[in-house]
């Protein structure tokens, strides 16, 4: 199943092949999980979203057009599911005050941590719309165009968000590493 192309995989799923769906699950579910976990910050919820996502993949596979990227399509479904969970729990902030940060972790708490842990905390502290583009870029190696497809924003917005998020993280990280 490893050698078949994405298009062939999609065609098989569209014809109801359970093996093809399993192959897609094996290939993409870990990435979907990592992305959803970064949106939801809840492992169990992220696992639930992965399951729901692949149920929808099976259910709506027929609606996938030939030109669509299968991976982007899966991640778009996962994103919608994850955001629905956020809305249910009213955890998604819509406030745009020009900052990339959703919360400020107390300085003293971060100084004592290892670098990798500080990076993790900073990533979690980013606003969701900045965090998710960075996650798709780094974890999934996606292009601006793919990220734009998944998130439903323009490529220039993707570029701008990544630039701002990265710069903000580097500045923050630099201030902790000096101490």
């Amino acid at each position, binding site marked *: 199943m490893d050698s078949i192309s994405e298009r062939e995989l999609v065609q098989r799923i569209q014809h109801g092949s359970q093996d093809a*769906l399993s192959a897609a699950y094996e290939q993409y579910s870990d990435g979907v999980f990592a992305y959803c976990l970064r949106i939801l910050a809840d492992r169990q919820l992220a696992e639930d979203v992965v399951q729901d996502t692949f149920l929808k993949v099976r259910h709506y596979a027929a609606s996938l057009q030939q030109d669509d990227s299968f991976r982007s399509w899966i991640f778009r479904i996962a994103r919608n599911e994850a955001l629905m969970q956020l809305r249910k729990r009213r955890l998604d902030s819509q406030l745009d005050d020009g900052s990339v940060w959703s919360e400020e972790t107390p300085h003293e708490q971060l100084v004592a941590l290892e670098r990798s842990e500080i990076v993790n905390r900073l990533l979690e502290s980013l606003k969701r719309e900045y965090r998710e583009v960075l996650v798709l870029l*780094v*974890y999934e190696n996606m292009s601006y165009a793919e990220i734009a497809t998944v998130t439903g924003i323009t490529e220039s917005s993707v570029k701008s968000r990544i*630039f701002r998020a990265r710069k903000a993280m580097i500045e923050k990280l630099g201030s902790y590493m000096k101490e």
Partner: protein
Amino acid sequence: MNHEHYEQLVSQFMDRELDSRSENELFLHLSTCDNCRRLLRASWQLQTDILQGKPKRQIEATRPSAVRLPAQVYPLWVTRISIPLPAAASIVFLLIIGSLLFSPMILQGEMPRPETKIEQTLPIPPDLQKALQLYK
């Protein structure tokens, strides 16, 4: 050209989104700018750090290779009564066939009667023989 322009080029270079012309422009700038070289190094380091923090699924070891997808949803009559239904149908079928086969024989008096056996096994008293004659 302001400095943020080059910072953006560094970011796009990191993301493999820079065309060759802009790449040349960036490299030319990097040869003279310590700040942008530092930014490029810091960007690489950040990328590595973020990737190292990629969450792993805890269920990986226990997950069956055959996918944890929920099973295909079948109608209730398939999942709950798929075995009893054919069995019940077979019994009903046999009952119907049996009743069709045997009911005409009973109605027409073709069923073996007790007197046959009685005649074969026991001596029948004469008065009982008379009574049995009435039923023939």
